[in-house]
């Protein structure tokens, strides 16, 4: 009898499909209640940090330069109060083969897929991860499918996503493009079942351990270049893997740096809305992913996400779309480094955060991304205008996502805003409690304290409310 490939039937087979496409039985990590053994899951890959470094070397990934942004730092010091304005460094991840840090997680995943005999790999992503997987598949001689959410119902595609499709194809991938909607996952499940390919999930442990090398390199390069730990490391946050992997790498290197998440503020825009899809100029690195994936990581395409950013996050700030375009312009005009806008979300935040810190402090921005047609400030602002968004110079606090993009009229107007991390932590705890039909066990409470980088008293208090 032929398989039922209807929506409900395929979604019901989700567990089996994902298990064979990732090759991991997640049941072994479960406690039967809220808690699961996160570290055992991370160890279960069998790859150490040293292994990840070796694997990545094989794909020409990593060892990217850490560049001091002396002119942007000087600009910050002009607008900060006397004695303030931390040194800003940036990790030029655009120097990786696929043009972004994402290839670190692709390298470990695709190495594993090749080693374990999968005929190809599939990645569901509208972001830089597609090119990253395509790049590693090309090097490994594996077939590759990238599935993107790309178009609205008018057939109009985000220029940035279209550029990523082009890049994936140039690296040999088959690109499947979909209109807006979370049922992309249904298409992905069907393709995984039909092809037997490895699910190069952004959220598997294979991917996230690959980013640990980024944190490790940041710590070692800081010791080499400035003789000490960085004070703050800023990570753009969407699905949470970037921050999780970087923070784990910093910890493994013995660094005590404060880890700050930064996302583009897209408050009020629904990510699954057909009519709002093209009202935004950032396709990732924004609050539409950053907030929900931080407060509930297991919404991802694997039963237990390896990306658990609240475990490592000390602070969460947001910046406006106009502030990120402005920062991209500053990086080009003051430092002579032209990079893609989305990768500069954390740099925009760093320009604001550096003003709170003394001149002796150091802030590290841990990524850049490649730029090109579509992935460029002019391309994105043109597209925004075509979709009815007002673009003007002014005060970024007047920016309304989906209605306006405000380019700061002066660098002093760029200001990262703190998100309520306490609220997010409580949200995760309460959601976790709602997934079981009994009071959380002592083990659950210990687990939730680790999940939220808090303590048992905080968890108990959150559960009372």
């Amino acid at each position, binding site marked *: 009898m032929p398989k039922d490939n209807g929506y409900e039937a395929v979604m019901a087979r989700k567990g089996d499909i994902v298990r064979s496409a990732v090759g991991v039985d997640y049941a072994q990590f479960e406690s039967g209640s809220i808690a699961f053994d996160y570290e055992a899951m991370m160890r279960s890959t069998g790859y150490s940090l040293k292994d990840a470094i070796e694997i990545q070397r094989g794909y020409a990934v990593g060892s990217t330069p850490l560049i001091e942004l002396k002119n942007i730092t000087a600009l910050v010091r002009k607008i900060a109060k006397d004695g303030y304005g931390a040194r800003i460094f940036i990790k030029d991840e655009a120097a990786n083969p696929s043009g972004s840090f994402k290839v670190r997680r692709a390298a470990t995943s695709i190495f594993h897929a090749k080693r374990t005999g999968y005929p190809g790999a599939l990645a569901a992503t509208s972001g830089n991860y597609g090119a990253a997987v395509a790049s590693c598949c090309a090097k490994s001689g594996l*077939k590759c499918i990238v599935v993107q959410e790309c178009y609205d119902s008018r057939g109009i595609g985000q220029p940035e996503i279209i550029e990523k499709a082009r890049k994936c194809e140039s690296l040999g991938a088959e690109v499947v493009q979909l209109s807006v909607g979370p049922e992309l996952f249904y298409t992905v499940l069907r393709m995984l079942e039909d092809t037997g390919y490895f699910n190069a999930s952004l959220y598997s442990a294979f991917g996230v351990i690959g980013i640990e090398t980024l944190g490790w390199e940041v710590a070692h390069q800081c010791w080499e270049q400035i003789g000490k730990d960085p004070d703050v490391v800023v990570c753009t946050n969407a699905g949470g893997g970037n921050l999780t992997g970087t923070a784990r790498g910093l910890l493994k290197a013995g660094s005590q740096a404060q880890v700050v998440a930064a996302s583009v503020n897209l408050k009020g825009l629904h990510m699954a809305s057909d009519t709002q899809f093209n009202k935004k100029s950032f396709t990732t690195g924004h609050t539409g992913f950053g907030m929900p994936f931080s407060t509930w990581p297991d919404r991802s395409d694997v039963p237990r996400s390896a990306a658990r950013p609240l475990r490592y996050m000390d602070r969460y700030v947001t910046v406006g779309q106009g502030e990120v375009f402005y920062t991209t312009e500053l990086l080009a005009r003051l430092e002579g480094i032209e990079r893609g806008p989305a990768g500069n979300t954390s740099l925009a935040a760093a320009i604001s955060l550096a003003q709170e810190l003394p001149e002796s402090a150091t802030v590290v921005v841990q990524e850049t991304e490649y730029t090109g047609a579509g992935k460029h400030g002019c391309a994105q602002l043109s597209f925004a205008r075509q979709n009815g968004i007002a673009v003007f110079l002014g005060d970024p606090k007047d920016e309304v996502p989906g209605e306006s993009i405000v380019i700061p009229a002066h660098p002093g107007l760029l200001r990262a805003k703190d998100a309520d991390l306490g609220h997010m932590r409580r949200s995760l705890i309460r959601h976790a409690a709602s997934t079981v039909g009994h009071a959380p066990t002592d083990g659950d409470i210990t687990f939730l304290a680790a999940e939220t980088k808090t303590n048992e008293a905080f968890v108990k208090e959150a559960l009372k409310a």
Partner: protein
Amino acid sequence: MAKKGDWVRIHSVVLPAGERAAAVPEDTQRVPLELWTKGYLRQDANLGDEVRVVTRTGRTEHGTLVDDAPHYEHSFGDFAPELQRAGDDAFRLLFGGED
């Protein structure tokens, strides 16, 4: 007329309007989930015909033929005066110079 073996783009509907997942917002419920992919055409056909293609990974896909020898047209967009002005101002603020 597209020829057998041509590199083409096809379009199909994965889920019709009204059969979308329950959690999808109302505006998205009203439109179908659509899919586009590319492959080598299995038979001669005209634009708008229902066709089969073999994709780069060797999968067979069905759909409506929408483009023959598809290419990219995305660009660097129009001139954005705000960005140039902001960059010029920041340069002057840091290094000095006339307005």
